């Protein structure tokens, strides 16, 4: 079975490829660039095309598949009314599948399930990464706020931190929010 993954996110394509490679008889191709997308798909002649919902080229693919209906190997979106659950799960995960007409559902299912699983795993990783980046940014903000208190009010570092924490508790806010407000106010006062 020849599977094409269309994905501009190379890291995600890699983890899906790695997963699909473990399925017997699966030959995987990754297309990461929109240029020549249709020509490449035509050349590979895949049985299944996986593409993420966020890819603007989906409309290009659908156009191609609509036209290719007249060709020897028509491809349709994997829309089987009896399997609404899988479709809902794939939309949820953000992946869509196009399948050569007549390919048995029991051959598609494991592959699609795997793709859905990997898409979800990738989304979780991305979320963790974003959260980690956010935490780093917050820590930097708290450091700047402490520095302002230390410079302007002559506090020690632990005193400055205690001051931020006390204000946050009194106002029912997070320390990072208080720090941000203080840094913003300080910038305004300094006129920059």
């Amino acid at each position, binding site marked *: 079975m020849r599977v094409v993954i269309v994905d501009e996110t190379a890291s995600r394509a890699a983890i899906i490829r790695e997963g699909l490679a473990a399925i017997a008889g699966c030959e995987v191709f990754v297309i990461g660039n929109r240029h020549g997308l249709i020509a490449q798909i035509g050349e590979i002649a895949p049985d299944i095309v996986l593409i993420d919902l*966020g890819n603007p*080229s989906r*409309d290009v693919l659908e156009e191609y598949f609509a036209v290719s209906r007249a060709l020897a190997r028509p491809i349709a979106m994997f829309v089987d009314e009896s399997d609404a659950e899988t479709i809902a799960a794939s939309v949820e995960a953000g992946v869509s599948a196009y399948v050569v007409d007549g390919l048995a559902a029991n051959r598609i299912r494991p592959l699609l399930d795997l793709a859905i699983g990997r898409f979800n795993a990738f989304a979780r990783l991305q979320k963790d990464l974003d959260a980690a980046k956010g935490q780093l940014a917050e820590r930097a903000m708290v450091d700047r706020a402490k520095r302002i208190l230390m410079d302007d009010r002559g506090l020690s570092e632990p005193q400055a931190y205690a001051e931020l924490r006390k204000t946050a508790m009194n106002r029912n806010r997070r320390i990072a929010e208080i720090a941000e407000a203080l840094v913003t106010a300080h910038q305004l006062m300094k006129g920059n």
Partner: protein
Amino acid sequence: MPVPLTIGFVPLVDACLPILAHEHGFAEEEGLSLRLVRDLSWASVLDRLLYGHSDAAHMIAPLTIATTLGRGRPAQPLAVPFVLGLNGNAITMRRELAGAIATPGQLGDPLRVGAALREIAAQRRAAGAPLRFGVVHRYSSHNYMLRYWLAASGIQPDRDVEITTVPPPFCADALEQGEVDAICVGEPWNSVAVERGVGEIVLASAQIWRRGVEKVLALRESRLDERRGDVEALIRALIRAGKHFVDPENHAANAAILARAEYLDGNIALIGRAIADRMLLVRGSEPVHYPDFMFQYREAANFPWVSQAEWLYTQLLRWDGLAFDPAQAAAAAHVFRPDVYRAALIGSGEPLPGASSKVEGSLDRPLAVGAQQGAITLASNRFFDGRAFDPSDLAGYLASLP
């Protein structure tokens, strides 16, 4: 507690009404809490709508007819209780092509530009390198307007020229790389191509059909039935957003909202020009004011005329090479739901037309028309070739087309 309602959209200027209904609190005042979900392809907006991720969607009008009739995937009945706007697209060409058939810095005359294009299309076809046009989707107003203009100019789409799908964010790139000679796309993407110096705007879609239906608010028919009250509340909120949108006082503020990262993630100046009907046709020149480039709110522009759905159905038959079928025609006509629009706005003071269908393209001067509520004067709604569409004779209209 406001009731949540999820609306899918593609980042284009004509996604403005749901965004502004949310941002200015009109939806909330109608008891709705809107959640806006952005997607970069119409396929993804449609998938979310069909599989229940969204309740409603900003959608290219012909796609609602195609989906209802099962073109390309199993048929699923959609309903359109509100038109999100008329026109707002343009045809942008590579500079050498634009220079050969039009005057740079001026919108062309569609008849004259069409005649000049016909010569070049014939030369290019004879040379084995036919002109290529990019449109955003097979079932888009852009595709139908472009094809209407080409065919009426004596250029047979798919024989004399190629028409291919190019996603809006890639339009400027495709012009630059020579993948296409021209694009028909909405804003801000024509302006992006102009600013990059890779294309010149030659025609506005409003020059092809002065009052052409463009984006619509689409729902699954079953979802409309389940949430009928909420949909009517949404229509009232969208009408208020439309009124706000057309007021020049609000142009700058609305451009700034639409430009934000979570919405269009685009350039405020370009979005502002589209809202104000001021288009920069060629890089380095002055913007040209073309009234009604993008048409909203006035003349009951958001009313879903059944005749619009029927016109779209004739174009679907025409370009998909299908035969007229009375049952399919009825299903297509039923997609547009003036009954829902009326129910939402009766008693509101907003003008409501007396009829639900009209002869499209029959007016060449303003005409006061019968109203169920308020007063409505419709301005010229002509097709550039002077042909009118009479919804009482779809088969006759189809037979009369070139």
